[in-house]
């Protein structure tokens, strides 16, 4: 069962709190390193998997009131294992094979969180698609969409981005969204 400290770690990760992130590295870097090397990887790969796993958890929990069903460590190490096996078996796309592999490397004592691991991986994959397509937009579109979502006033955005009228701004916004939608469907 999760304890209060587990939720503190998750909330800190969500906020990008540097002290919490350092603590997570301090605590889990040796474990992740040892596990990846034991399963045929390099330290450099362990470092990348570690970072990706943190971002994946962010993608799953950001913007919602997520309560951990298990300890932070079980969730984080679960994602690390899942990502590593996915990477190793990239050619074996069959989900069933991956799930069997995951079971083989999961400790008997670990909580049953397979559904959460799969959902986290899906959220991460979706966020990557959104990010990759967003980055292909023009700088103007990226800034405009970010400023509008960030709650800045229309007048302020018109001034910052040198639009003539609010109407022109919103016409451009619609065009940016449409472009993003097309890029996303191609991603």
């Amino acid at each position, binding site marked *: 069962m999760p304890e*209060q*400290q587990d939720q*503190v*770690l998750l909330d*800190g*990760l*969500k*906020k*990008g709190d*540097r*002290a*919490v*992130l*350092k*603590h997570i*590295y*301090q*605590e889990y*870097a040796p474990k992740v*390193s040892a596990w990846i090397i034991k399963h045929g990887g390099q*330290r*450099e790969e*362990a*470092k*990348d998997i*570690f*970072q990706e796993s*943190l*971002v994946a958890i*962010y*993608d799953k929990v*950001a*913007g919602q009131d997520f309560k951990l069903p298990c*300890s932070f*460590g079980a969730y984080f190490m679960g994602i690390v294992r899942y990502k590593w096996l996915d990477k190793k078996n990239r050619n074996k796309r069959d989900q069933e094979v991956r799930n069997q592999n995951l079971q083989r490397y999961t400790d008997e004592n670990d909580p049953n969180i397979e559904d959460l691991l799969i959902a986290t991986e899906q959220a991460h994959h*979706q*966020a990557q698609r*959104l*990010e990759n397509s*967003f980055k292909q937009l023009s700088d103007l579109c990226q800034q405009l*969409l*970010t400023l509008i*979502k*960030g709650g800045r006033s229309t007048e302020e955005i018109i001034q910052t981005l040198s639009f003539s009228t609010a109407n022109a701004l*919103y016409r451009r*916004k*619609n065009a940016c*969204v*449409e472009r*993003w*939608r097309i890029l*996303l469907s191609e991603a």
Partner: protein
Amino acid sequence: MSDDYSKKIEKYFNNEFSEAEREAFDQELMEDAELAKSFSQRKQMEDFLAVRPGREKLKAEIADLGDEFFVDASEPTAKRIPIRRRLYWIAGAAAAAIILVLLVPTWFNAPPSYQQFAEHRPLSLQERGTSGEELTAIETAFNTAEYGTALDLLDQYLATQADDTQAQIYASIAALELDQVQDAITRLTPISNGQSVYQTTAQWYLALAYLKQENYAQCRSVLSDIPADNYWYAKAEQLLKKLPQE
């Protein structure tokens, strides 16, 4: 996607619907699968825009942490130990070898000492609105084992940044190193009873403070509270085994 869909969906996200229009739109969403699909995709984009700044911040924060913590296991801390301290180590090891030869019969019964367990991770303070120079001075003093200077600077810093738990912990370590053991205990106790991420770090140093006082019972009691899935657990177990039996 049709222009009509697109206009409706944008009106929704721009909050331009009247209440009646909104209700009609909700109804349409339930009846028109294609509209619902477009809406769902557009909502994902909108939700992503909301969390993207936080995602970028997280990526920026962890960009350099990997290099710091994924170091070669054969030299886990070599990079971080200043040369002066390495010389102390060599001198210390030589002295220890001589003492060992002289004291072999009693060596195995000797209780553990603070020095055997006092390895401090280098201090790296986070930015919290104070000037970079002040933080650098504190880090340099601590990491070069100038604990008197470090404690003065940390106390000045804590006067305005009282809630920086990491700084409180390092001030306690500096106090311990300066043999101000009771002061260290006073600083560490509330953190060790708190809920911050430094709680177990505080427990570990509190145990070291009691060890320094040769108060083995308190030392054992604090060590026993360190949870098994924690970074400090292995060290705690090691020290527990060496403590004299009551």
